[in-house]
Protein backbone atom coordinates (compact mmCIF):
# COMPACT_ATOMS: atom_id res chain seq x y z
CA UNK A 1 0.00 0.00 0.00
CA UNK A 2 1.36 3.39 -0.97
CA UNK A 3 2.13 5.68 1.90
CA UNK A 4 1.76 9.43 1.63
CA UNK A 5 1.59 12.51 3.82
CA UNK A 6 -2.05 13.14 4.72
CA UNK A 7 -3.40 16.20 6.42
CA UNK A 8 -5.91 16.32 9.21
CA UNK A 9 -7.12 19.79 8.36
CA UNK A 10 -9.03 20.42 11.55
CA UNK A 11 -5.74 20.04 13.46
CA UNK A 12 -3.56 22.40 11.39
CA UNK A 13 -2.64 25.60 13.20
CA UNK A 14 -0.84 27.12 10.18
CA UNK A 15 2.43 27.55 12.08
CA UNK A 16 4.42 26.63 8.94
CA UNK A 17 6.78 24.43 10.97
CA UNK A 18 6.53 21.81 8.20
CA UNK A 19 7.66 24.33 5.61
CA UNK A 20 10.59 25.35 7.77
CA UNK A 21 11.65 21.77 8.51
CA UNK A 22 11.56 20.92 4.81
CA UNK A 23 13.52 24.00 3.89
CA UNK A 24 16.17 23.25 6.50
CA UNK A 25 16.52 19.71 5.21
CA UNK A 26 16.54 20.35 1.47
CA UNK A 27 17.19 24.06 0.98
CA UNK A 28 13.72 24.81 -0.29
CA UNK A 29 10.27 23.97 1.03
CA UNK A 30 8.30 21.29 -0.76
CA UNK A 31 5.19 21.90 1.29
CA UNK A 32 3.34 25.19 1.35
CA UNK A 33 0.88 26.30 4.01
CA UNK A 34 -1.59 29.13 3.54
CA UNK A 35 -4.66 30.10 5.52
CA UNK A 36 -8.03 30.11 3.80
CA UNK A 37 -10.38 32.67 5.35
CA UNK A 38 -14.13 32.48 5.11
CA UNK A 39 -14.83 36.17 5.61
CA UNK A 40 -16.55 35.64 8.95
CA UNK A 41 -13.41 35.57 11.03
CA UNK A 42 -12.84 31.86 10.54
CA UNK A 43 -9.89 30.30 8.79
CA UNK A 44 -8.20 26.99 8.08
CA UNK A 45 -4.53 26.37 7.42
CA UNK A 46 -4.07 24.05 4.46
CA UNK A 47 -0.66 22.53 3.68
CA UNK A 48 -0.17 21.47 0.06
CA UNK A 49 2.53 19.06 -1.06
CA UNK A 50 2.83 16.14 -3.50
CA UNK A 51 -0.22 13.89 -3.29
CA UNK A 52 1.50 10.75 -4.58
CA UNK A 53 -1.25 10.36 -7.21
CA UNK A 54 -2.23 6.88 -8.34
CA UNK A 55 -2.04 8.16 -11.94
CA UNK A 56 0.52 10.95 -11.71
CA UNK A 57 -0.05 13.64 -14.33
CA UNK A 58 3.51 14.85 -13.86
CA UNK A 59 4.81 11.45 -14.97
CA UNK A 60 2.45 11.44 -17.97
CA UNK A 61 3.81 14.81 -19.07
CA UNK A 62 7.49 13.97 -18.45
CA UNK A 63 9.24 13.49 -21.80
CA UNK A 64 12.32 11.89 -20.28
CA UNK A 65 10.60 9.38 -17.97
CA UNK A 66 12.39 10.96 -15.04
CA UNK A 67 9.16 10.84 -13.04
CA UNK A 68 7.26 7.62 -12.59
CA UNK A 69 5.23 5.52 -10.23
CA UNK A 70 6.66 2.56 -8.37
CA UNK A 71 5.05 0.31 -5.82
CA UNK A 72 6.07 2.43 -2.84
CA UNK A 73 5.41 5.84 -4.33
CA UNK A 74 6.42 8.36 -6.95
CA UNK A 75 10.03 8.26 -8.01
CA UNK A 76 12.10 11.04 -9.49
CA UNK A 77 15.37 10.40 -11.30
CA UNK A 78 17.28 13.66 -11.41
CA UNK A 79 19.83 12.15 -13.79
CA UNK A 80 17.18 11.78 -16.49
CA UNK A 81 15.51 15.14 -15.82
CA UNK A 82 16.15 17.81 -18.41
CA UNK A 83 14.49 20.66 -16.47
CA UNK A 84 11.90 21.30 -19.17
CA UNK A 85 9.29 22.19 -16.55
CA UNK A 86 6.40 20.31 -18.15
CA UNK A 87 5.68 18.41 -14.92
CA UNK A 88 5.14 21.75 -13.18
CA UNK A 89 2.43 22.57 -15.71
CA UNK A 90 0.86 19.11 -15.44
CA UNK A 91 0.46 18.92 -11.65
CA UNK A 92 -3.17 19.75 -10.80
CA UNK A 93 -2.15 20.79 -7.29
CA UNK A 94 0.81 23.02 -8.10
CA UNK A 95 2.94 20.76 -5.93
CA UNK A 96 5.97 20.80 -8.22
CA UNK A 97 8.22 23.78 -8.67
CA UNK A 98 11.35 24.51 -10.62
CA UNK A 99 14.08 25.74 -8.38
CA UNK A 100 15.50 28.87 -9.89
CA UNK A 101 19.25 28.68 -10.13
CA UNK A 102 21.02 31.83 -8.93
CA UNK A 103 20.40 35.25 -10.49
CA UNK A 104 22.25 36.51 -13.55
CA UNK A 105 25.11 34.56 -15.05
CA UNK A 106 27.39 37.32 -16.25
CA UNK A 107 25.15 38.14 -19.16
CA UNK A 108 22.11 40.36 -19.23
CA UNK A 109 19.99 37.23 -19.37
CA UNK A 110 18.53 35.77 -16.25
CA UNK A 111 19.18 32.13 -15.72
CA UNK A 112 15.71 30.79 -15.10
CA UNK A 113 16.58 27.16 -15.42
CA UNK A 114 16.69 24.96 -12.40
CA UNK A 115 15.87 21.69 -10.82
CA UNK A 116 12.58 20.04 -10.10
CA UNK A 117 11.42 20.43 -6.51
CA UNK A 118 8.85 17.92 -5.36
CA UNK A 119 8.14 16.11 -2.08
CA UNK A 120 9.78 12.70 -2.14
CA UNK A 121 8.65 11.60 1.31
CA UNK A 122 12.19 11.93 2.67
CA UNK A 123 13.88 8.84 1.25
CA UNK A 124 16.04 7.11 3.84
CA UNK A 125 14.05 8.46 6.76
CA UNK A 126 11.46 6.57 8.71
CA UNK A 127 9.11 9.56 8.80
CA UNK A 128 9.21 12.64 6.57
CA UNK A 129 10.60 15.65 8.47
CA UNK A 130 7.39 17.66 8.06
CA UNK A 131 5.37 14.94 9.76
CA UNK A 132 7.92 14.57 12.55
CA UNK A 133 7.92 18.33 13.10
CA UNK A 134 4.20 19.12 13.02
CA UNK A 135 3.41 20.22 16.60
CA UNK A 136 -0.34 19.89 16.11
CA UNK A 137 -0.25 16.37 14.74
CA UNK A 138 -2.02 17.53 11.62
CA UNK A 139 0.33 15.75 9.22
CA UNK A 140 0.14 11.98 9.17
CA UNK A 141 2.41 9.63 7.24
CA UNK A 142 0.31 6.60 6.46
CA UNK A 143 -1.55 4.83 3.69
CA UNK A 144 -4.89 6.00 2.39
CA UNK A 145 -6.91 3.22 3.97
CA UNK A 146 -5.69 3.59 7.51
CA UNK A 147 -5.91 7.37 7.33
CA UNK A 148 -9.59 7.08 6.41
CA UNK A 149 -10.11 4.51 9.12
CA UNK A 150 -8.56 6.77 11.74
CA UNK A 151 -10.70 9.72 10.69
CA UNK A 152 -13.83 7.60 10.97
CA UNK A 153 -12.74 6.25 14.34
CA UNK A 154 -12.14 9.78 15.64
CA UNK A 155 -15.53 10.94 14.52
CA UNK A 156 -17.21 7.87 15.96
CA UNK A 157 -15.56 8.42 19.35
CA UNK A 158 -16.82 11.98 19.40
CA UNK A 159 -20.38 10.76 18.90
CA UNK A 160 -20.04 8.05 21.53
CA UNK A 161 -18.78 10.47 24.17
CA UNK A 162 -21.56 11.11 26.70
CA UNK A 163 -22.92 14.59 26.24
CA UNK A 164 -22.17 16.91 29.17
CA UNK A 165 -24.87 16.92 31.80
CA UNK A 166 -27.18 19.89 31.47
CA UNK A 167 -26.60 22.54 34.11
Amino acid at each position, binding site marked *: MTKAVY*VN*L*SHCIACKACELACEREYGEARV*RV*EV*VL*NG*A*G*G*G*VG*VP*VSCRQCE*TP*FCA*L*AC*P*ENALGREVDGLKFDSGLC*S*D*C*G*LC*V*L*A*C*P*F*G*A*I*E*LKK*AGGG*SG*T*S*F*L*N*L*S*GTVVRCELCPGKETPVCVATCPAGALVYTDCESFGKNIRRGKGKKCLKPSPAPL
Partner: protein
Amino acid sequence: MNKKPVYLEIDFDKCIGCRACTSSCPNGFIRLSETGRQRTIVFPESCGMDCQACVSACPEDAIRFARAQEYEEVRKNKEKQAERVISGSSEFELCFELVVCRKCKRPFATEKELKRVLEAIDAEISSSEYAWKGLCPSCRRDLLREREARAVLRVRKF
Protein backbone atom coordinates in the same frame (compact mmCIF):
# COMPACT_ATOMS: atom_id res chain seq x y z
CA MET B 1 37.09 19.09 -25.53
CA ASN B 2 36.94 21.32 -28.56
CA LYS B 3 36.28 20.00 -32.01
CA LYS B 4 35.08 21.25 -35.35
CA PRO B 5 32.04 23.43 -34.78
CA VAL B 6 28.65 22.01 -35.56
CA TYR B 7 25.77 24.24 -36.58
CA LEU B 8 22.53 24.30 -34.72
CA GLU B 9 19.42 23.73 -36.71
CA ILE B 10 16.24 24.44 -34.80
CA ASP B 11 12.85 23.34 -36.02
CA PHE B 12 10.86 26.41 -35.06
CA ASP B 13 7.52 24.74 -35.59
CA LYS B 14 8.41 21.90 -33.26
CA CYS B 15 9.95 23.99 -30.47
CA ILE B 16 7.47 24.49 -27.63
CA GLY B 17 9.54 27.01 -25.70
CA CYS B 18 10.23 24.88 -22.63
CA ARG B 19 13.45 25.31 -20.71
CA ALA B 20 15.13 21.98 -21.40
CA CYS B 21 17.88 23.12 -23.77
CA THR B 22 18.74 26.26 -21.83
CA SER B 23 19.18 24.41 -18.59
CA SER B 24 20.93 21.41 -20.11
CA CYS B 25 23.69 23.34 -21.89
CA PRO B 26 26.74 22.99 -19.62
CA ASN B 27 28.29 26.15 -21.07
CA GLY B 28 25.21 28.34 -20.98
CA PHE B 29 25.36 28.99 -24.72
CA ILE B 30 21.58 28.78 -25.06
CA ARG B 31 20.09 31.63 -23.11
CA LEU B 32 16.63 32.27 -21.78
CA SER B 33 15.00 35.49 -20.73
CA GLU B 34 11.52 36.46 -19.69
CA THR B 35 10.23 40.00 -19.86
CA GLY B 36 6.57 40.64 -19.27
CA ARG B 37 4.55 38.30 -21.44
CA GLN B 38 7.43 37.25 -23.64
CA ARG B 39 9.89 34.40 -23.30
CA THR B 40 12.96 34.61 -25.51
CA ILE B 41 15.41 31.82 -26.17
CA VAL B 42 18.67 32.79 -27.85
CA PHE B 43 20.60 30.09 -29.70
CA PRO B 44 24.19 30.36 -30.93
CA GLU B 45 24.70 29.70 -34.62
CA SER B 46 27.30 27.06 -33.97
CA CYS B 47 28.83 25.16 -31.06
CA GLY B 48 32.36 23.93 -30.78
CA MET B 49 31.87 21.68 -27.78
CA ASP B 50 31.81 17.95 -27.87
CA CYS B 51 28.45 17.35 -26.29
CA GLN B 52 24.90 16.64 -27.30
CA ALA B 53 23.18 17.77 -24.13
CA CYS B 54 20.67 20.10 -25.79
CA VAL B 55 19.83 17.62 -28.55
CA SER B 56 19.06 14.84 -26.11
CA ALA B 57 17.26 17.13 -23.65
CA CYS B 58 14.79 18.57 -26.17
CA PRO B 59 11.44 16.83 -25.60
CA GLU B 60 10.29 17.64 -29.13
CA ASP B 61 13.48 16.67 -30.98
CA ALA B 62 13.55 20.17 -32.40
CA ILE B 63 17.34 20.60 -32.21
CA ARG B 64 19.63 19.04 -34.77
CA PHE B 65 23.35 19.39 -35.37
CA ALA B 66 24.30 20.12 -38.96
CA ARG B 67 27.68 20.25 -40.66
CA ALA B 68 28.80 23.53 -42.19
CA GLN B 69 28.00 22.85 -45.84
CA GLU B 70 24.69 21.26 -44.89
CA TYR B 71 23.80 24.23 -42.76
CA GLU B 72 24.29 26.81 -45.48
CA GLU B 73 21.61 25.04 -47.43
CA VAL B 74 19.30 24.89 -44.47
CA ARG B 75 19.76 28.55 -43.92
CA LYS B 76 19.12 29.45 -47.52
CA ASN B 77 16.08 27.26 -47.79
CA LYS B 78 14.54 28.31 -44.57
CA GLU B 79 13.91 31.98 -44.64
CA LYS B 80 12.44 31.68 -41.20
CA GLN B 81 15.79 30.81 -39.71
CA ALA B 82 17.47 33.78 -41.41
CA GLU B 83 14.74 36.12 -40.25
CA ARG B 84 15.36 35.30 -36.65
CA VAL B 85 19.06 36.02 -36.74
CA ILE B 86 19.80 38.90 -34.41
CA SER B 87 21.34 41.66 -36.48
CA GLY B 88 25.01 42.21 -35.81
CA SER B 89 25.62 38.75 -34.41
CA SER B 90 25.46 35.16 -35.51
CA GLU B 91 22.93 34.23 -32.84
CA PHE B 92 19.28 33.73 -33.54
CA GLU B 93 16.34 33.98 -31.23
CA LEU B 94 12.96 32.46 -30.74
CA CYS B 95 10.16 34.38 -29.03
CA PHE B 96 7.10 32.96 -27.34
CA GLU B 97 4.13 34.77 -25.97
CA LEU B 98 3.33 33.53 -22.49
CA VAL B 99 -0.19 32.57 -21.44
CA VAL B 100 -1.44 34.49 -18.40
CA CYS B 101 -3.05 32.73 -15.45
CA ARG B 102 -6.79 33.27 -15.60
CA LYS B 103 -6.92 34.14 -11.92
CA CYS B 104 -3.82 36.12 -10.99
CA LYS B 105 -3.11 37.29 -14.56
CA ARG B 106 0.59 36.51 -14.24
CA PRO B 107 2.26 34.96 -17.31
CA PHE B 108 3.38 31.40 -16.61
CA ALA B 109 3.78 29.16 -19.67
CA THR B 110 3.73 29.08 -23.46
CA GLU B 111 0.64 27.90 -25.28
CA LYS B 112 2.54 25.05 -26.91
CA GLU B 113 3.79 23.80 -23.54
CA LEU B 114 0.27 23.69 -22.13
CA LYS B 115 -1.04 21.98 -25.24
CA ARG B 116 1.62 19.32 -25.04
CA VAL B 117 0.95 18.64 -21.35
CA LEU B 118 -2.82 18.37 -21.84
CA GLU B 119 -2.36 16.05 -24.80
CA ALA B 120 -0.13 13.78 -22.73
CA ILE B 121 -2.73 13.64 -19.97
CA ASP B 122 -5.68 13.20 -22.32
CA ALA B 123 -3.98 10.22 -23.92
CA GLU B 124 -4.29 8.35 -20.59
CA ILE B 125 -7.37 9.87 -19.04
CA SER B 126 -10.56 10.48 -20.94
CA SER B 127 -11.89 13.36 -18.88
CA SER B 128 -10.85 16.58 -20.55
CA GLU B 129 -12.34 19.19 -18.21
CA TYR B 130 -10.14 20.16 -15.32
CA ALA B 131 -10.84 22.93 -12.86
CA TRP B 132 -7.15 23.82 -12.81
CA LYS B 133 -6.93 24.44 -16.55
CA GLY B 134 -5.47 27.87 -17.30
CA LEU B 135 -4.31 28.40 -13.71
CA CYS B 136 -0.69 28.95 -12.74
CA PRO B 137 0.80 26.50 -10.19
CA SER B 138 0.37 28.94 -7.32
CA CYS B 139 -3.32 29.50 -8.10
CA ARG B 140 -3.80 25.73 -8.43
CA ARG B 141 -2.61 25.39 -4.86
CA ASP B 142 -5.07 28.08 -3.79
CA LEU B 143 -7.92 26.32 -5.60
CA LEU B 144 -7.12 23.08 -3.80
CA ARG B 145 -6.89 24.86 -0.46
CA GLU B 146 -10.22 26.58 -0.89
CA ARG B 147 -11.94 23.30 -1.71
CA GLU B 148 -10.45 21.48 1.24
CA ALA B 149 -11.01 24.33 3.67
CA ARG B 150 -14.68 24.63 2.74
CA ALA B 151 -15.55 21.32 4.39
CA VAL B 152 -13.72 22.17 7.62
CA LEU B 153 -15.20 25.67 7.81
CA ARG B 154 -18.67 24.22 7.37
CA VAL B 155 -18.16 21.89 10.32
CA ARG B 156 -16.65 24.59 12.51
CA LYS B 157 -19.57 26.92 11.78
CA PHE B 158 -17.67 30.12 12.33
